[in-house]
């Protein structure tokens, strides 16, 4: 649901630091707001976003991607599946809360059913029993809940470390951080270790997809932006968005 950097597994202290970095970057942007040659109407902050994007991309290249690659080489496949399932189960809890807040009964039932099955029979989420039984996952976070009640996405935004988002989803982020069960763990070192594992494991699962994007994109920034905005819109309409406009046939 996010391309590259995971949005959910972020701890509180990191968030505070992020907010500071973010403010500084906004300030820097206001100082020297370079106009982009061909503005996109969904992306009025393009010049700022591009700056943050290349910062994230650089950081990913030197730190996160090598770490994730190493992690993938030293861990067996079943281990990564288990880790992914475990954090997926925690995310399902938050998804269930949000589909509930959106008053979507069927999806909430599915999400709750998944959590109950996977937490019990699935040994705290490590085994994804629910998927074997065809109980579907309906990912949702607070940004999508806001969308459901009519909040428009606002401009596209690239946040330091967190990557692609929109103004609406960024506004929902503090709530999502609170809803992340990993952040509820009292012991800071356990919490940090789990958050780190989540980030590295998620990145490892995107290694192949990332390589495809590197080959397929002429401009990685536009590729990510246009894919992200479509993906988000698709999630808001649960996989069946109305046609935006009649397709222009040249």
């Amino acid at each position, binding site marked *: 649901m996010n391309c590259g950097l995971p949005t959910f597994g972020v701890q509180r202290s990191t968030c505070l630091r992020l907010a500071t970095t973010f403010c500084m970057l906004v300030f820097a942007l206001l100082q020297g707001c370079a106009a982009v*040659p061909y503005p996109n109407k969904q992306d009025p902050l393009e010049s700022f976003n591009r700056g943050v994007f290349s910062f994230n991309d650089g950081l990913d290249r030197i730190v996160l991607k090598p770490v994730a690659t190493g992690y993938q080489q030293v861990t067996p496949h079943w281990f990564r599946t288990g880790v992914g399932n475990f954090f997926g189960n925690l995310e399902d809890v938050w998804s269930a809360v949000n589909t509930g807040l959106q008053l979507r009964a069927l999806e909430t039932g599915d999400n709750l059913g998944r959590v109950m099955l996977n937490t019990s029979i699935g040994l705290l989420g490590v085994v994804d029993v629910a998927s074997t039984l065809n109980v*579907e996952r309906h990912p949702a976070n607070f940004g999508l809940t806001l969308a459901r009640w009519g909040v428009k996405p606002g401009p596209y935004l690239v946040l330091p470390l967190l990557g692609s988002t929109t103004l609406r989803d960024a506004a929902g982020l503090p709530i999502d951080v609170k809803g992340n069960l990993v952040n509820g763990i009292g012991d800071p070192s356990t919490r940090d270790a789990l958050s780190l594992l989540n980030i590295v494991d998620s990145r490892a699962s995107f290694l192949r997809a990332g390589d*495809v994007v590197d080959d397929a994109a002429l*401009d990685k920034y536009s590729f990510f932006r246009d894919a992200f905005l*479509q993906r988000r819109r698709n999630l808001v309409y649960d996989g069946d968005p109305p046609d935006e406009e009649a397709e222009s046939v040249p």
Partner: protein
Amino acid sequence: MKRDFFRKGLMIASAVFALFLVPAAYAQDEAPDALVKRLSVDVLDTLRSDKAIRAGDLAKVIALVDARIMPHVNFQRMTASAVGPAWRQATPEQQKRLEEEFKILLVRTYAGALAQVTDQTIVMKPQRSSAEDKEVLVRTEIKNGANPIQLDYRLEKTPGQGAGWRIYNLNVLGVWLVETYRSQFAQEINAKGIDGLINTLAERNKANSKKA
């Protein structure tokens, strides 16, 4: 009673007549969702069973895509739509080059993903189109463990006899292929013109083929 008999006879006669008159039309009467299903099952089966593909032979995947999928794709429309208004200003020669390079880019980059297919199966989602529609949306899902992958296609009815339905756009998880390239192409064209875009595509393809 007699009239009913007559009507039945007329119906049978016209059915037989139609069969003889348009034998070629039979295959093309295939509905768009049936076409997508047949193609998907066919391609998934081949991907699973072919030993060379399993061993990572990209050339074979590309050959498979060319032979089975491309005849059912209106790639000219896909390219034109991704290029946008500038398409009309391009010469026929430029249009041909754009089409070729864009096709190589897509087939090469996504062939790797296709080679990873193992035990996925396809599920058709309910269709909403009516029989008179000239353009339809076919919605499918690739079942693959935890998260089913949404895969939708837009198809157009080709005017004239014998061409059937052709795909002109597709989306993965809600992300339409053509739309994802539109602003990237526009950027290149605005900065360097149509030839600039052709060169960028060609260079990228050369770089990608060296990596593989």
